[in-house]
């Protein structure tokens, strides 16, 4: 018993030693931990985020709400365990006040507990599974949610003549979300999904799935596979001659990722996707964004991940401005709620109830514009909330 109290005492002492956050002084910088996948399966997301960070700091400087903002970038290797450990260290050792980044859903979820317990705002830049927001009250999101996009597609498709679908999605959380919400909305709008195929995430060859899909004789395929795999998918789609068989591809934006679109070449032309952002979105905000991004990153083309990262940083800056540099979890999240931003992708806001993003979702078509391939927007669904959260 005495042993126990001694131990308790020791732990308390240690906790006080390490945990006691010194009273914020004006000259203390606000530290922001950026946990992103620079290696491993999702490294292309990490690359875009890193580039966006560079561009953002170059244009907006390192001050917000009267304080120095300091970014600490860490690689989680696309592994949730690492993301968690790195975030913990950022919080406990480096004393960051805000965590951001998170290149996929599992890494975002792994940190949710920490964010909740340590009351650290966690600003999601990419992870798109709907349920994430419930995992911590300090979660904010500037990317998009899968149901947001999938339901928009589900609404658009039957209105425009495609009713009979086969869905092909990658076999992981977001894939299942996409499949579910697409089916839900299209069935509510008079269409059907006659077959649902799940493709293993680490799948080298789409041939059998494409064949299976074609054999079901749908009017169109609904497709969601991660960036990169999308290119392979489209190529094999064309290679099978499915483009000539009258089967259309209507996909989530990831499939025609702006980052890779140019190298995808002709097979991508004509593909219809739904998504939150296109590099050639026509607005002054976007022109400025694309220019800043390219200038700071050797002409690299930003994609929707870059836009979301940019907006996350913008949100952090604007919120700090509002709180005068106060980054305490409750204050920060409260201030961020309802925030409206003129984003490169159009107007966005943070839903005060769900802390999730509200934004326009666009239907786009791949076209050749001035020698380059772009997703050209042709229809807008304005101010779409995450349908799964309602």
């Amino acid at each position, binding site marked *: 018993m005495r042993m*126990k109290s001694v*131990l*308790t005492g*020791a*732990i308390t002492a*240690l*906790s006080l*030693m*390490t*945990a006691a956050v010194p009273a914020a002084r004006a000259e203390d910088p606000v530290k922001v931990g950026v946990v992103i996948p*620079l*290696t491993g399966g999702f490294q292309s997301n990490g690359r875009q985020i890193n580039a966006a960070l560079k561009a953002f700091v170059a244009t907006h400087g390192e001050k917000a709400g009267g304080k120095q903002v300091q970014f600490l*970038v*860490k*690689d989680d290797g696309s*592994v*949730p*365990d690492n993301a*968690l*450990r790195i975030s*913990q*260290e950022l*919080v*406990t*050792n480096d004393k960051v006040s805000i965590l951001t980044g998170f290149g996929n*859903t*599992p890494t975002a*979820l*792994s940190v*949710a*507990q*920490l964010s909740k*317990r*340590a009351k650290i705002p966690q600003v999601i830049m990419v992870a798109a*599974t709907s*349920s994430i927001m419930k*995992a911590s009250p300090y979660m904010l999101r500037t990317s998009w949610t899968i149901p947001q996009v999938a339901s928009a597609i589900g609404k658009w498709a039957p209105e425009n003549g495609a009713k009979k679908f086969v869905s092909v999605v990658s*076999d*992981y*959380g977001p894939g*299942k979300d996409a499949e579910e919400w697409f089916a839900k909305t299209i069935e509510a709008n008079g269409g059907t999904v006659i077959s649902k195929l799940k493709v293993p*995430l680490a799948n080298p060859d789409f041939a059998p799935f494409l064949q299976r899909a074609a054999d079901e004789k749908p009017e169109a395929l609904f497709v969601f596979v991660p960036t990169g795999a999308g290119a392979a998918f489209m190529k094999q789609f064309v290679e099978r001659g499915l483009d000539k068989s009258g089967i259309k591809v209507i996909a989530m934006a990831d499939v025609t990722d702006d980052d890779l679109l140019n190298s995808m070449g002709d097979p991508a032309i004509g593909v219809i996707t739904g998504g939150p952002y296109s590099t050639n979105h026509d607005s002054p905000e976007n022109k400025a964004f694309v220019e800043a991004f390219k200038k700071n990153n050797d002409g690299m083309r930003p994609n929707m991940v870059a836009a979301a990262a940019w907006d996350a940083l913008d949100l952090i800056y604007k919120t700090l401005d509002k709180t005068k540099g106060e980054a305490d979890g409750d204050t920060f999240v409260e201030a961020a709620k309802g925030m409206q931003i003129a984003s490169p992708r159009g107007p966005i806001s943070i839903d005060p109830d769900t802390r999730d993003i509200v934004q326009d979702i666009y239907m786009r078509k791949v076209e050749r514009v001035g020698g380059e391939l772009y997703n050209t927007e042709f229809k807008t669904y304005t101010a779409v909330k995450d349908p799964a959260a309602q």
Partner: protein
Amino acid sequence: MMSVREKRQSATAEAVRSVMKRHGRWSRLEIGFWLIAVAAWFLLPGEHLILTEIVIFAILALSIDLVLGYAGIVTLGQAAMYGVGAYASGLLSIHVTGEPLTGLLVAALAGALIAFPTSFLLLRGADLTRLMVTLGVAAVLHEIANQASWLTGGADGLQGIAIDPLFGTFEFDIYGHTGYAYSLVVLFILLLLARFVTASPFGYSLKAIRDNPLRASAVGIPVKARLVAVYTLSGAYAGIAGALFTQTQQFISLDVLSFQKSADGLMVLVIGGTGYLYGGLVGALAYELIQDALSSVTPQYWQFWLGALLIAFVITGRDRPRQLINSISARISRPRQPGRLDAVTVADKGKPT
């Protein structure tokens, strides 16, 4: 004449007894190691998270050492037991009780339960076959966990794990204070147990099998049954490592069952050296610290330098760390050159912290 012979024999017996007594005795280096590990809790409160991770990694490597270092089975599938242990303890905390020690027990059982049937698949075949079979089993389990998302949360990870305070008192804090102390104690107990096991008749029969399975069976050792037994034991160890991970992180993703986990475990053990129980510890410590250092210098390309280090390490000879430790240990046990000894102890102290 008989008495001369008897005298000689009793002198020999005395010598034999002295050899025997040497076994199981704690070397100064070992004691020093543990003192430093405990001291780290007080002196390095900011490093408890990475230390916890190192300790868990070390237990995983220790479980591999039991089969590889002591029974000669190479495996690339230890994540199977590690992951099942992790999920078992996680699910237990969600559905039954969040009491951590029960979680450890259940995880040990789960790990052993997976390892036991698997071990029968390993009785035939050479290194490559065993590597591939263990890898295959782990891959199948990984896929099952992925598919059974209603149970495991699939690729998104298992949500809602809540671990009760240890002994009802010590909360698992986000700084890892409790976590490090807890896992260090578990590691110590497991290592103690492993020390007993490896110094037992059973342990020696494993070493015999590792060194020469043909001769082992020719002196009456039931080779297959012993391999099944030790693989099962190692499964329990791996399961406990998995449970510790779950409990200290309060989160599980599919990565606990990944090939990467198995490969890292094996790599760490091989770096630290097999067959003396501390290899996993040394390897985990070195590997994590190097990786941490490299990835903070170059977050995107640290793998390059890690690879270069690995190659250099193999080319210059993998026995080196082991030899170094042996020689340090020998010098500490026989402190004849005080001047040099100081230098060694200081250098040694600098390392594991």
